[in-house]
């Protein structure tokens, strides 16, 4: 099967990969690039575990094809920390115990990051609707919502 050679930017680095036409970004990340931080929970856009940010928009990596990504900017969980400095959302998830099994965490962190970029001062309800595309079965969402609200406050504060 013909493979397409795609050049894209992942977490700031130029990355070249070859993919088959039907391969999703999720498959490309996990299988071709060995970037396992993006998780596969359903393959149909219903759980949000594979949420990554492409060209500043949060999307399900299972619902994007690798061949579409020529020239795209892709952000995954592996690039969320600034070097060894955790992102405020990552810090707050640890502080608030906003994770248990952790399988949904990378997707939720990416979604929260993209959401706060659009809405830096959300209400509890807005956070809940913002994260409605990310299933978590462990936490009951309580501590996740608190962590996102707390991170938003910290991110708004002048440095």
């Amino acid at each position, binding site marked *: 099967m013909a493979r397409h050679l795609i050049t894209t930017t992942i977490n700031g680095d130029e990355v070249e990969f070859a993919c088959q036409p039907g391969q999703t970004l999720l498959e490309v990340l*996990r299988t071709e690039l060995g*970037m*396992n*931080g*993006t*998780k*596969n*929970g*359903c*393959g*149909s856009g*219903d*759980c949000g*575990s594979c949420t990554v940010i492409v060209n500043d928009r949060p999307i399900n990596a299972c619902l994007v094809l690798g061949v579409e990504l020529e020239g795209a900017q892709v952000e*995954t*969980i*592996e690039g*969320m*920390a600034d070097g060894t400095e*955790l992102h405020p959302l*990552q810090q707050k*998830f*640890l*502080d*608030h*115990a906003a*994770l*248990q*099994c*952790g*399988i*949904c*965490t*990378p997707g939720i*962190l990416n979604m929260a990051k993209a959401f706060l970029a659009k809405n830096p001062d959300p209400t*509890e*309800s807005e*956070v*809940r*609707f913002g*994260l*409605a*595309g*990310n*299933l*978590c*079965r*462990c*936490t*009951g*969402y*309580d*501590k*996740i*919502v608190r962590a996102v609200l707390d991170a938003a406050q910290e991110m708004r504060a002048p440095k």
Partner: protein
Amino acid sequence: MSNDNAKTNFQWVGKRTRRPDGVDKVTGRARYGDDMSMPGMLHCKVLRSPHAHAKILSIDTSKAAAIKGVKAVLTSAEIPDHPLSKPPYAPIINDMHDISRNVMARDKVFYDGHAVAAVAATSERIAKAALKLIEVKYEVLPHVLDPIEAVQPDAPILHEDQFTFLGDKTSEIPSNLFRSSVGERGDLDQGFGEADLILERDFSSEPVHQGYIEPLACVASTSEDGCVELWTTTQGHFVIRALCSSLLNIELAKIRVTASEIGGGFGGKNTVYGEPVAIRLSQITGRPVRMVMSRKEVFRSSGPTVGSRTHIKMGVKNDGTITAAEVETWYQAGAFKGAPTGRAVETYFSSYTIPNLKATVHDVCVNRPKVAAYRAPGAPMAAFAAEGIINELANRIGMDPIDIRLKNAVTEGDQSLGGSVYGSIGLIEVLNQTKNHPHYLAPLGPNQGRGLALGYWMHGGGLSSVSVHLLDDGSVTVATGNPDIGGSRSSMRVMAAEELGIDIELIKPIVADTGSMGYSHLTAGSRTTFATGWAVINSVREIIEKLCILAAKKWEIDVNDVSWEAGHAVSTKSGDSIKPLSLKELAAMATKMGGAIAGHSEINAGGTGAAFCLQLVDVEVDPETGHVTPLRHTVIQDVGRAISPDYVEGQMQGGAVQGIGWALNEEYVYDDQARLQNTGFLDYRMPVASDVPMIDTVIVEVPNPNHPYGVRGVGEPTLVSAPAAVANAVENAIGKPMSSLPLSPPKVLKAIEQIQVAAE
């Protein structure tokens, strides 16, 4: 063993500390079931039955095997057969005859999604293409989904070799009813005779899935010397090893299982599905084999919990004393026996001192996936019926729902239906804290209702193994054999730090593989912090003993004159001015003065303590659509001792929201051919973040007298009472008892319309 369960001045227990596995999980480093790959690895896909019940007449794999890239095609012929197990049966049966057939159908398929063949190929795409070329001829048989229909004389029989077990004999003819668990005491006639009011009601609930977000996944690699390495997402790699060993006739020592990080389990990852198949394919091909289930496969072929049909009768005096209760319940075991009937009998009325009662729970096979455990298996559906009818009784006699529970609450010295006598328990404290909680006193708006329900759960104990190693620089590794599903590494670390009296950051907890550790039972039954934590405490105390000996040797004094205080060996000889030795100093000395220092514990933990959880729920019902919105939710639970309060709360909150899903929307939906219709998260409707409110928690701590720190099981009790509490809230909002879960909008709207019709 010294018992600190009355202690209150802890250094680490009860503190909010960052979890040791947290950074790996927020950065994407943590490796789950699907994150392992090996050189030369093959990909396995499974062909599944489109029929709910059929004879397999033939399977032709030749065309699939001929595809380039296909390395092996497997059917049940490649899986060793096992005889049916014989009585006496254990409460929980692991019948290799059944499990081998569940892993790969042998002569018949018993449910839509039942595995019939598997392919190992060089890519998943090729494996999928090969599945389409496997030709299976079926003779489709009539099916049965409902457990009461399944025990009727004309019902289709799933297993011609299954007879009802009647204690001392078995039934004459084959039956879908495997056995019935019964518990009774007192005199029902007398009890109901004393009652001023007797109510009878039918309840039902549908199977619900654990809904873990990480699909089942494993990689098996076998070698020519017969050794097996298995990487899998599981709640108990020692159990997986034991099952694979028995199923495939491989010596235990030759199978080394590593538990990956686990992306949720809730009981659903307690047994084998793909592991034996991947091992066999690896044996046949000589290459590593990976098997990852799709979400659809998870729903169709891994075990949900039981659905239930219940008839319950209860009598009460006008003063609120419950005089008698009788209940009969039919549980859907799915394709093979093994519904959690014993647990149901035990949990039905264990919160109450009902003198006369009888509970009968039937284990019935139907054409659905074989059930698996789900968070307090067997209990939430029992509590739904028991707590529903108690609420209605309280309403009818005009009594406050907490008061009726206080009136009948069990206390220390009372006996459960299972026969155990309660030690110190926190039920009265839980009820009193609820009564005084602002939530209980808050006003309600129009179309709103408040419900409460009580849950009982006796958590597990059992086998746990731990190794703790003190390293040269004073840091410590704590290795357990229990996969960490909800933060157990955090609580293990806390307990080790508490005993040693050192900074928590010096301790690194890990989950060891089966080759490195003694047998450890599942991370399930709310047992891990209790039992494995106990083994950690034992192990650390062994280290402390050794360090005291070391200090005595160094100081040339009697070891009885050395004690361990705040991370130091201290001389207690009167008038002695020997400078205490820190853990770090002792660690540095150890290898020069005899050898490395480690502590081990292999225990079979007894002394479990009953836990009670009450939930208080407010909902609003849209009277025109039947839509239920949870508004406020408070969980009040006796946890014995909260080792890591963050994760205790997390368990309570997570269980509550699972209960909301169970109560309102989650269910297996089948078509008239018994094919599962909702095989994805779109139509299997688990709660999303916007469906639920914050979940308030009240941690009640009545220490378990049998555990060194007073720990009780935490994970399961919350789910026991959650569906019942939500149902009682809906009932309170609309003014009509609700007896059938889920309380989906069509059902609620219909109930509202029935009330309107009755009023007109």
